[in-house]
């Protein structure tokens, strides 16, 4: 799979976690693609932390409204039944436990569910934006990312970059498999048949617990 295929593969698997009626916030990058794979028979609403629910697809060039953008700053649209609000309302929704799920990328994530995704000291300092509120408030936190970064594991025993949230991650989805954060550690519940369990473990610093009923990731 090329990078594009990997991202779609991961996004599609994350989309399978969605349930009818869910309210979801997607981070920028890979997580944004999840919206493309929502099942036809369910109704999912996307929240955009810059100020609306009912995030629609990117508009055609001919009907761009500079007043309607995504949290990534790109032109967007609002679906029927959506509405606009201010930043305090937006984060009342996020912090107040009204989001069923947030899907975010990660620089590092560890077996205790700790997440690091907002800075590499002295190097990359984008800032946390809404991520710290999202992981603090969403009912379910799903990490959607490529399994490794330039061959180096991103799923660690313990994150060493500045933390975005302590013990907040529920599920990790990568092109290699699906991992659940549990009291006992990371449980590999699904595996991409292109890989062996050994290969996944090799690409993962944290020790994986293999689910008894390990399934194929499709």
């Amino acid at each position, binding site marked *: 799979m090329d990078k594009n295929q990997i991202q779609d593969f991961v996004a599609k698997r994350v989309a399978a976690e969605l349930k009818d009626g869910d309210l979801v916030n997607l981070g920028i990058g890979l997580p944004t693609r999840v919206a493309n794979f929502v099942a036809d028979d369910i109704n999912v609403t996307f929240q955009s932390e810059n100020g609306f629910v009912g995030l629609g697809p990117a508009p055609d060039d001919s009907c761009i409204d500079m*007043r309607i953008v995504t*949290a990534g*700053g790109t032109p967007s649209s609002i679906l029927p039944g959506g509405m606009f609000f*201010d930043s305090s309302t*937006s984060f009342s929704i996020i912090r107040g436990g009204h989001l069923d799920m947030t899907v975010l990328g990660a620089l590092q994530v560890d077996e205790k569910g700790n997440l690091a995704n907002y800075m590499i000291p002295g190097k990359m300092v984008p800032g946390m934006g*809404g991520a710290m509120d999202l992981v603090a408030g969403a009912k379910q936190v799903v990490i959607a990312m490529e399994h490794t970064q330039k061959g180096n594991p991103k799923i660690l025993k313990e994150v060493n970059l500045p933390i975005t*949230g302590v013990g907040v991650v529920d599920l990790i989805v990568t092109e290699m498999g699906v991992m659940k954060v549990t009291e006992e550690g990371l449980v590999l519940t699904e595996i991409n048949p292109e890989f062996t369990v050994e290969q996944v473990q090799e690409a993962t610093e944290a020790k994986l617990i293999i689910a008894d009923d390990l399934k194929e990731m499709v």
Partner: protein
Amino acid sequence: MSKVIEIQEAIDKIKDGDVIMVGGFLACGTPLKIIDALVESGKKDLTLICNDTSYVDRGVGKMVVAKQFKKIIASHVGTNRETGNQMNSGETEVVLVPQGTLAEQVRAGGSGLGGVLTRTGIGTLVQEGKQMVEIDGVEWILEKPLRADVALLYGTKVDKSGNIYYEGSTQNFNILMAAAADTVIVEAEEIVEVGELNPNIVRTPGIFVSYIVQGDVL
């Protein structure tokens, strides 16, 4: 009594060293014309409170490039490499704040509240040096209110008494900042007569607004 002034008069309200709040999210809902005039003006040693530092060539991002800030309080600076450079070189003090916390801090500043009690940032760098409050056995971070000398806001339609109606995702921090500064200047896409706005759809009361400047249509 009209609050409409020329843009140069608006710039004259801002002094070197002032704390300014600027509405907008990646420049959507930012008073772009005022900011451009502010770059032109060469005002310096300002402190910026804004969701983000936009892009090098748009909105407050231009002021970062022009080195007009000695301090920046924002939730995200990753879209403007110049902010990161100045942060890493120590030239500009950059305080990264979770977006929802920033929104509540500004709201508290305008609402006579003593601070914000949030779980966002617990166990992260954000918590460092902050007063903690224990409530029924749970620890909360106390985040202090923010206020500014001048708030620079955007409005889609603004009546001459300063009532603001917003369209799209432009509300963001504008509504909150309107209450939290000693002087409040709004850049209007369209200025209308008092009485022309439906009182049920105005979001920022004119009582908060000191001056209005005619902006460009987006």
